[in-house]
């Protein structure tokens, strides 16, 4: 009997060890990627990288200023097209969403978040690029907005549901109409949390490449308008990474460092915000 017990304990310990090992194994790639991007990218970051246009093949120097600007443009457009509808749809689901229709919306949002980003690229291509006959920042922005939409909607809904019912009742009890109660009491209470969710959604779309390949496309020059093909950091990284030139590889690593820096800052900031809020409650 005693022997069996020690055998059981042994199995238990082995499983615990394996779980610990698995966690370590899952985190190794993260460490490796961060290490490679930092050590190879840091050398390529100089003033020119942030201020100059890319040089043609064979010429040294140049930078990625247009791609940086392009990424800001595209993400800005995505926010413009994606956040207001997402938040309002979330408000609908949380405040009025008790019917079958709301179930359908919720379900569509969940399903949409699983749609491969490359197919969203095809969708926006047929919807916008084919009709306007041009790759454009608009098309890229719409593609990223479609990617953001389900996340923003579901986050907003979840956070609005956390707002205590008593707050709603208090506002309504003071004679405020429901729309004002929702906007200036409920939504306001949940705003920091929603902002956090939006930051995470932005971090995600800022690094998306696939949906931009045939919507925003690429451009070697300064953006001159939103109806023009527009360069972006992820697409530029891809183009440079698969090219045969060492100089371009170096630039790809540097751009990757900038991109991953942006994404990490957004993620860490979102996390700090959440923790701060939890503590102050």
């Amino acid at each position, binding site marked *: 009997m005693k022997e069996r017990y020690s055998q*059981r*304990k042994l199995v*238990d310990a082995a*499983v*615990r060890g*394996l*779980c*610990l090992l*698995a*966690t370590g*194994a*899952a*985190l190794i*790639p*993260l460490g*490796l*990627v961060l290490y*490679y*991007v930092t050590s190879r990218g840091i050398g390529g970051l100089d003033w020119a990288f942030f201020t100059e246009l890319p040089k043609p093949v064979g010429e040294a120097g140049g930078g990625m200023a247009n791609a940086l600007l392009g990424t800001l443009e595209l993400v800005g457009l995505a926010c413009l097209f994606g956040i207001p*509808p997402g938040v*309002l*749809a979330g408000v609908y689901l949380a405040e009025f969403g008790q019917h079958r*229709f709301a179930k*359908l*919306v919720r379900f*569509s949002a969940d399903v*949409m978040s*699983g*749609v*491969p*980003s*490359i*197919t*969203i*690229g*095809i*969708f926006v*291509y*047929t*919807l916008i690029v084919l009709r306007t006959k041009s790759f454009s920042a608009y098309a890229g922005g719409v593609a990223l907005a479609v990617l953001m939409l*389900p996340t923003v*909607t579901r986050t907003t809904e979840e956070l609005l549901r956390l707002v205590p019912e008593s707050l709603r009742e208090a506002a309504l009890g003071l004679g405020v109409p429901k*729309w004002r109660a*929702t906007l200036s009491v409920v939504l306001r209470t949940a705003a920091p949390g929603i902002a956090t969710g939006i930051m*995470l959604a932005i*971090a*995600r779309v800022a*690094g998306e*490449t696939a949906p931009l*390949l045939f919507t925003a496309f690429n451009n070697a020059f300064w953006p001159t308008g939103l109806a023009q093909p527009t360069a972006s950091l*992820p697409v530029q990284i*891809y183009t440079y*990474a*698969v090219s045969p030139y060492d100089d371009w*590889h170096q630039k*790809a690593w540097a751009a990757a460092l900038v*991109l991953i820096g942006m*994404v*990490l800052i957004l*993620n860490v900031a979102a996390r700090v915000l959440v923790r701060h809020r939890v503590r102050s409650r």
Partner: protein
Amino acid sequence: MALLGAEVNAGDVLFRGVAALFAITIVLVLGAMAIQMWVAARPSIAHSGWRFIVGRDWDPVRDSFGALPFIYGTLVSSLLALGIAVPISLGVAVFLTELAPPWLRSPVSFLVELLAAVPSVIYGLWGIFALAPFLRNHLEPFLGKTLGFLPLFQGPHQGFGMLAGGIILAIMITPTISSVSREVLRAVPDSLREGALALGSTRWEALRHTILPYARSGIVGAIILGLGRALGETMAITMVIGNRTDISVSLFAPGYTMASVIANEFTEATGDVYLGALAEIGLLLFAVTLILNVVARLLVWRVGRAPEGARG
């Protein structure tokens, strides 16, 4: 109604209407996606018919479109990714819910989530310059020497190929599977856990005989969600899989995936049939991921609303 004092506020009606409008938008966008893709794919469906799915010859110049190499590459790389990622992700989920001391849980789960935050193109860049050379010089020779009797591990060591693709995908879907399984494990009532432990189970026995059976359908759901991500993943795998339309049993050989061929050829596609063929691949991906997502969500949802008697 108005007479009875239920005054209708015009602002309320407007507000509700606007919110409902945007809610409808989500459904409409999803519907529009399906319709647009189908319309775009129609020339190819008319041109190739069933040959599209079973044909192995992809030659746009001769208008011959057989997508089997892409379907094969997508399936093999995704299944390989699941083979690697599922045990690791479940280990992570169990570690985070059942074993880790509370102070360690949130930093570790944050790090695992960061894995999902790293952009796909950066995994691809790392794959080209770090993972593929490592596979070519170390892992593939090693596997060839020890397991070379299996056809899976034969052939020249190139670095770029199915194995590289599967590993990259595994890294990328680990956070998905582990975070959903973690939620599922957390939804298992504590009373079950406590009951099993009070009867003298070790942690492992409680897990094996009580917690996992309860969470099984949710964990299957998590794995299906991971599969859905792996099937649709584009950039990283395009950069490491080698992009060749051969069907080879060896994991060392280069392959091609459905998402990769869209990424590589879509902007160069001339003619309705060629463009339609790529759109049809997109449509297939869309349909498959849609079905997987529906099934997965239903499974995960079932654990959340288990019978009342089982609740604590």
